[in-house]
């Protein structure tokens, strides 16, 4: 520590309220706990049972579910801080983190704002304005184009909300006639998302690399460029894989990037932790994109390679402490760190392409093997987990469906990628479909390993291929057998009579035991008998049973012993094995005829609200004709008629909230009689 540092900072923080939720709230709490600082949480009604709530010393409810009612209510957040006796507020990222007015309100309330000055936030809040400031400060920028003067030569270009972020309010324009719509679309989206519909255009670098520099600036004039990160692999302009250092950046370019980042921070008199984002072209040219005046989601990779705690640094800076001699810090990154964002979302076919579909529902289990640190720098190289969900957490429709960030830190990039891919592949992620398979496939992709990671990565290497499941057909088949045998073991354990007798024992054997499961479109029927000579399963020649317990089944498959971890959740069995994770839905032994869904039913593909209904009961429709639209996760989903016929049932109207699987409407072939003997018999 420098001798100039006061023994006790002028403005010592003793209690921090984190105006956020999920993993970032937990991340900040972890550092607070380490520094001996009390912490306070806020939570919406939807988050009442979230893991971040009990981890703080105190927690205050923000009534409501939507961000607008809760985490975006600066007045309520400041009241909560007062109620908890907090003397500082950390905004995390997202929500109020880049809201200059909030920063000012916090300071006005006599609380310490753990973030940059509101003026710096304001300066960087407008993309147009920020580019001007940067250009003046000598930071390279892409020239802004006036939509009115754009010509063919400028294509492709990007129409971008000035206040945007996270990919929203952005449109890529490939043809001039698309421009007006793109600008209008971006404006509308920006207006509703950010309350500011200013949109500008710039050259679109479609195979660029997204490279950003983490800076720390104190109140004493020091600006430290801590290190660069590369976050080029993105989908819909949202980062998926992030790493430090960038495989693209050499020593010379690094020096230029750091220099530009320091200039950028200096130009706006920046304080605290911030990130200067650049877009780099294939030949090493780079341009300022924007500056994020907050902690980034991907900050852990920098923490690993720089060996620091960025939240602790933020707190120290907010307290007025000096950066400890930034020039003496390690010049070169220590090893390599890669972060992936595990999202509860899946790629599904839509129209002639693919779309990302967010999932909601309970996370029954999230367990990543070989994690050596959570929310903290691993003591040595290793795997770090920053997760906002626990076993049993429910991912709702109100917030981002990110389940966890998994970070691998190793001496080399290849080792980090290998360890991370393995940790992810072996992780237990139960309950929701996730992008896990995609992440593992990216990390194992030769192009990724060769460092060829520009922003077009997911398109170039075919998203469908990249998202293909880790578990193949054989893994599914064997997992179904393991699920059946584990279910049998549970059945025996739970038996109220004859519990100690052999499973499925018969003195005169004629039928096997049967269990059926579905995985996606496939059905797996497992037929087996357990006898004194072992497992007899007709479709599983060469497979022997070593052990079957309720949550663990060991099989020998053609002489190779394999262990299957089986977890039984309501309506879901998850089987994790080295062959790949498999999620199976057990088919009930019997179907209650009253509970079966009539043919031609349209079910809600996800929970949401009915936006509008295009048909009426009794109306003739043709297969594929839109019947109604649902809004869920801020996206519109069209529900189309499954077949030609007449709308015989219409159970919803516009504005109605529906659950996943709810029968929205039924189309019956026009010539079919109303009488349905199966259903009538069932209701007797």
């Amino acid at each position: 520590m420098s001798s100039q540092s006061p023994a006790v900072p002028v403005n010592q923080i003793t209690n921090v309220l984190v105006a956020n939720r999920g993993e970032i709230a937990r991340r900040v709490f972890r550092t607070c706990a380490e520094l001996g600082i009390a912490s306070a949480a806020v939570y919406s009604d939807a988050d009442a049972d979230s893991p971040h709530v009990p981890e703080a010393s105190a927690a205050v409810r923000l009534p409501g579910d939507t961000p607008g009612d809760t985490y975006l209510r600066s007045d309520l957040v400041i009241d909560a801080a007062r109620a908890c006796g907090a003397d500082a507020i950390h905004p995390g990222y997202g929500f109020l983190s880049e809201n200059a007015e909030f920063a000012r309100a916090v300071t006005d309330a006599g609380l310490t704002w753990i973030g940059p000055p509101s003026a710096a936030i304001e300066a960087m809040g407008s993309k147009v304005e920020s580019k001007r400031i940067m250009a003046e400060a000598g930071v390279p920028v892409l020239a802004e184009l006036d939509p009115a003067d754009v010509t063919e030569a400028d294509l492709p270009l990007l129409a971008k909300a000035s206040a945007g972020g996270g990919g929203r309010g952005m449109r890529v324009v490939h043809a001039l006639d698309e421009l007006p719509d793109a600008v209008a679309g971006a404006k509308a989206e920006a207006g509703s998302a950010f309350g500011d519909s200013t949109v500008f255009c710039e050259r679109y670098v479609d195979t660029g690399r997204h490279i950003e520099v983490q800076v720390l600036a104190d109140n004493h004039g020091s600006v430290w460029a801590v290190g660069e990160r590369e976050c080029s692999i993105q989908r819909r302009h949202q980062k998926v894989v992030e790493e430090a250092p960038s495989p693209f950046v050499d020593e010379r370019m690094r020096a230029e990037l750091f220099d530009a980042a320091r200039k950028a921070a200096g130009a706006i008199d920046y304080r605290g932790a911030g990130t200067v984002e650049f877009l780099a072209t294939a030949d090493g040219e780079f341009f300022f994109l924007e500056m994020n005046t907050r902690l980034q989601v991907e900050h852990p990779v920098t923490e690993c390679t720089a060996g620091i705690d960025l939240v602790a640094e933020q707190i120290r800076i907010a307290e007025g402490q000096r950066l400890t001699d930034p020039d003496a810090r390690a010049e070169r990154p220590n090893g390599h760190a890669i972060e992936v964002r595990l999202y509860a979302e899946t790629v599904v076919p839509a129209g002639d392409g693919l779309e990302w579909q967010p999932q909601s529902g309970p996370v029954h289990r999230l367990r990543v093997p070989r994690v050596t640190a959570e929310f903290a720098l691993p003591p040595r190289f290793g795997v770090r987990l920053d997760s906002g969900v626990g076993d049993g957490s429910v991912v709702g429709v109100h917030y981002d469906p990110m389940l966890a960030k998994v970070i691998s830190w190793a001496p080399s990039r290849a080792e980090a990628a290998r360890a991370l891919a393995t940790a992810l592949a072996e992780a237990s992620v139960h309950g929701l479909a996730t992008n896990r398979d995609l992440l593992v496939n990216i990390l194992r992709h030769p192009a990724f390993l060769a460092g060829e990671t520009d922003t077009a990565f997911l398109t170039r290497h075919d998203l469908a291929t990249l998202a293909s499941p880790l578990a193949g057909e054989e893994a599914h088949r064997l997992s179904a057998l393991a699920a059946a045998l584990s279910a049998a073991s549970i059945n025996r354990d739970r038996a109220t009579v004859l519990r100690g007798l052999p499973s499925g024992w018969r003195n005169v054997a004629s039928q096997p035991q049967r269990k059926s499961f579905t995985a996606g479109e496939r059905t797996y029927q497992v037929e087996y008998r357990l006898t004194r000579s072992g497992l007899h399963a007709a479709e599983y020649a060469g497979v022997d049973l070593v052990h079957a317990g309720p949550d663990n089944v060991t099989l020998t498959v053609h002489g190779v012993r394999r262990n299957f971890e089986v977890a039984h959740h309501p309506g879901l069995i998850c089987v994790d094995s080295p062959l790949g994770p498999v999620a199976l839905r057990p088919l009930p032994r019997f179907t209650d005829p009253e509970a079966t869904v009539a043919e031609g039913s349209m079910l809600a593909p996800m929970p949401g609200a009915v936006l509008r209904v295009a048909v009426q009961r009794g109306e003739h429709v043709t297969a594929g004709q839109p019947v109604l639209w649902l809004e869920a996760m801020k996206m519109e989903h069209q529900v189309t008629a499954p077949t030609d016929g007449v709308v015989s049932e219409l159970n919803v109207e516009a504005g109605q909230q529906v659950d996943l699987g709810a029968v929205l409407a039924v189309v019956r072939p026009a010539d079919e009689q109303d009488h349905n003997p199966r259903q009538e018999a069932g209701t007797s």
Partner: protein
Amino acid sequence: MTVLKSMVDTSAEEFVTNRDAMLSKLDEVEGEHAKAIEGGGAKYVARHKERGKLLARERIELLIDEDSPFLELSPLAAWGSEYRVGGSVVVGIGVVEGVECMLIANDPTVKGGATNPWGLKKSLRAAEIAERNRLPVIHLVESGGADLPAQKEIFIPGGRTFHNLTRSSAQRVPTVSLVFGSSTAGGAYLPGMSDYVVMVAEQAKVFLGGPPLVKMATGEESDDESLGGAEMHARSSGLADFLAVDEEDAIRIGRSIVRRFNWDKLGPEPRREYTGPYYDPEELLGVVPNDLKVPFDPKEVIARVVDGSDFDEFKPLYGNSLVTGWADIHGYPVGILANARGVLFSEESQKATQFIQLANQTDTPLVFLHNTTGYMVGKEYEQLGIIKHGAMMINAVSNSTVPHISVLMGASYGAGHYGMCGRAYDPRFLFAWPSAKSAVMGPQQLAGVLSIVARESAAGRGETYDEDNDAAMRQAVEQQIEAESLPMFLSGMLYDDGIIDPRDTRTVLGMSLSSIHNAEVRGTDRFGVFRM
């Protein structure tokens, strides 16, 4: 805790020979079981399945709890008769929603499920087991009624079926009929007498008289559906409590009915924690000598059947041709009586009598392991009162009220069969190993006795005895008696509840004991007058 010590040498030549012989007998039994499973044969099975219907055993499998054990009873009924093995009905004890039930399923692939004399005997035996052990009965009905050419053997005794159903109901043990097909004429009383009735739409057909009979009787024109269809019974007559859309649905409803029995077993619960035998039950294959004249130590069997091979022998030094003692099987305490050297003497008889009284004093069920050639004969033994002592034992067995289970391991001859609780002495269950034989005496002895009697008779008439005829007679009698004392024959006659693999003895006894404990387990102190 007294863990038995085994002397079995699994590498001994004798053991290997015994084992091979037992395995080949087991193969034979399996071959006969396969005939029962085949039902009416491939053609009728295929026809039945083409109609989208489930086989009797498929219905049972779907009805019982997943992965639960099922004990099929009398699978070889009608063996050796003119009827197909199994007797056109499948019966057994299965667990439905955690309740042990007696399941009685017609096999419609055998003459449309028509009841034949052996099938009737089998059903009545099942009903008897259900009644004595207080098991709810579920009928899975699809039967064309009585096999008419054999009506003389069915009609009068068959009435008992309906009597039993309503008696069960009156004793607060519910009965269920799941009607999958025809259940007409007298058969209509099967659902008629059941507490709960489920009928499968478009399949069940329940009426007293079909359209031709009605036409003959009253001139009325009618059809199956209006006379006895499932819809009609569910909506009009009220005979069906539930209308099922298909067979699976009927079974689903059947299970939901049982779930609401709120069933409590009246016997004591088994110990929750127990271990299997210390010795491998697999070794039971080599324990019984192929030649029943060679005695074997029943403690080698007990060591491979009871919990922890833990057996406390009673009166080990007295009457040691019969082993008596206490053990647990699947957590249920039992007293065991096992023949050691075949013959029962006066000491063994008195020991057995005392032991049976002790079991009654403590409400402990008894297991009889048979390997006896009967009570000792001869001047000395008659003079010492072997009849009185044998009678004491038979008195005790007959009047004992704790549940009895018999397992015929080897010989079960003469009055020894009675004293060891043979079929006529109402054991709750009686099973035979493939090595068992039961008759009034051994085939050679019986032939020998006949030969002596004939020779004396010839001598009395002053005729010369034809030795060639005698040899032929002896051989014929020996063969006949041998064949009639084999377990498949006896099983076919319903003289046991099934032939079991010796390795399954522990499982079968465990299931039997658990079933038995649905009823109260209570001993008595009231016996007949003991001749001392």
